[in-house]
């Protein structure tokens, strides 16, 4: 692993993003717009809006970065740049961490804008600090990036890649406790939910909503999400093969 190559790769990914203005605009504006939609659905600020908007601030970056990364990595495979990169001194981990870093930064911008809009424009109220919400959003985005990199190994086409969204993301969303409190789920469902990283991200956000100070549960949850992201990156590295048929 080489830091220089990792940073060069992150810079390259960000430059690619910068040339694609529309994607940047969508990346930054869409989460805030969706939150506004939630605001009007629940008829202004209040308990339900606060609860759902807070969770969504963590879910959006996860979903969006998952999609963006799996397509970006798939392109890297299909255009031959991956084959070429793997004949250079670049290590697999350099490539993957470069992606994680670049989209993590993009998620930080996105998360700050969305969180700012939620608190100042839409009157979101939490007991805890908004900075923690952004932090959780960024870690979640990195988890999305890592899972996207991993899943793109199993897709040959863009059509297949987008199909991984319902497979990987939706079950986590359904079981994370947003729709049905996890304690009320059947035991086996709760068991599955315990094994899914998004569950912990949502729990961490709920903690920020309830407590003025950062709780140990929140830090533990955040560590679990970060750990899951690292595991997914390592698995993704294992799917990158220098030699192919």
């Amino acid at each position: 692993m080489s830091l220089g190559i990792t940073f060069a790769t992150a810079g390259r990914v960000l430059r690619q993003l910068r040339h694609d203005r529309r994607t940047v605009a969508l990346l930054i504006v869409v989460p805030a717009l969706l939150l506004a939609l939630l605001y009007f659905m629940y008829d202004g600020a209040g308990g339900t809006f606060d609860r759902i908007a807070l969770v969504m601030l963590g879910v959006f970056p996860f979903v969006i970065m998952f999609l963006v990364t799996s397509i970006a990595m798939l392109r890297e495979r299909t255009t031959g740049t991956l084959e070429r990169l793997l004949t250079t001194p670049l290590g697999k981990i350099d490539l993957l961490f470069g992606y994680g870093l670049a989209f993590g930064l993009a998620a930080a911008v996105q998360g700050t804008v969305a969180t700012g809009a939620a608190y100042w424009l839409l009157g979101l109220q939490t007991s805890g600090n908004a900075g923690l919400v952004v932090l959780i959003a960024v870690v979640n985005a990195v988890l999305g990036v890592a899972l996207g990199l991993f899943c793109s190994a199993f897709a040959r086409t863009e059509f297949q890649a987008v199909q991984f969204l319902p497979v990987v993301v939706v079950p986590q969303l359904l079981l994370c406790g947003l729709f049905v409190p996890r304690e009320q789920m059947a035991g086996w469902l709760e068991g599955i939910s315990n094994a899914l990283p998004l569950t912990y991200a949502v729990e961490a956000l709920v903690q920020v909503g309830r407590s003025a100070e950062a709780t140990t549960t929140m830090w533990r949850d955040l560590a679990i999400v970060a750990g899951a992201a690292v595991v997914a990156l390592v698995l993704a590295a294992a799917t990158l093969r220098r030699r192919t048929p």
Partner: protein
Amino acid sequence: MGTAIEVRDLVVERGRREVLHGITCTIPSGSVTGLLGPSGSGKTTLIRAVVGVQIVKSGEVTVLGRPAGSAPLRSQVGYVTQAPSVYADLSVRENARYFAALLGLGAAEADRAIADVGLADARGQLVGNLSGGQRSRASLACAMIGEPKLLVLDEPTVGQDPVLRADLWARFHELADAGTTLLVSSHVMDEAGRCDRLLLIREGRLIGDDTPAAIRTAAGTDDLEEAFLRLIREREQVTA
């Protein structure tokens, strides 16, 4: 003159079919070797084996004294894939700088490689907006950065006009004179005459491995295309 590439009994299967059936050859360093053969004959497959991205069934490929694809080779081998593999959503210069950074090199080396392929005027342009020929030169520039000891080029001159082709071949020979080894595939026979050595491949077998002059003499014709055809016919008579 030393040996840059040594291929021994190389057998490769792709999609459950054997596409290289035991290739053996050596490529001297500091020379331009042409790899010629019809479409589907296995040129790209052999090249992929040399840069170490091809899963091989058996045989050995040694590059600059090491097994093909081993880590120390990765900063010494420049590879141009057949389809241009550069980022379409980056400018020529951003592409070149990224590939330079992978080798720990800076902007000056990147700019030099861009100028070498005649893209200096287009360096700020997005690769996606380049013409096909320009795009493959952008891809070539990224491989030439950092003066690799071995340059492996898969049909680098496709889509280039005659003047540019002549320029590129002149550049290849300059590099070879300075000690670089070049392996260049092509299926344009008029380029064969520009090589120091030729490897003729057909249906996954080598049917010629010599200098252009020797191949002309052996086949009894001055036209390399005709020589290639005669070699094929001879082969068919032997096997028939």
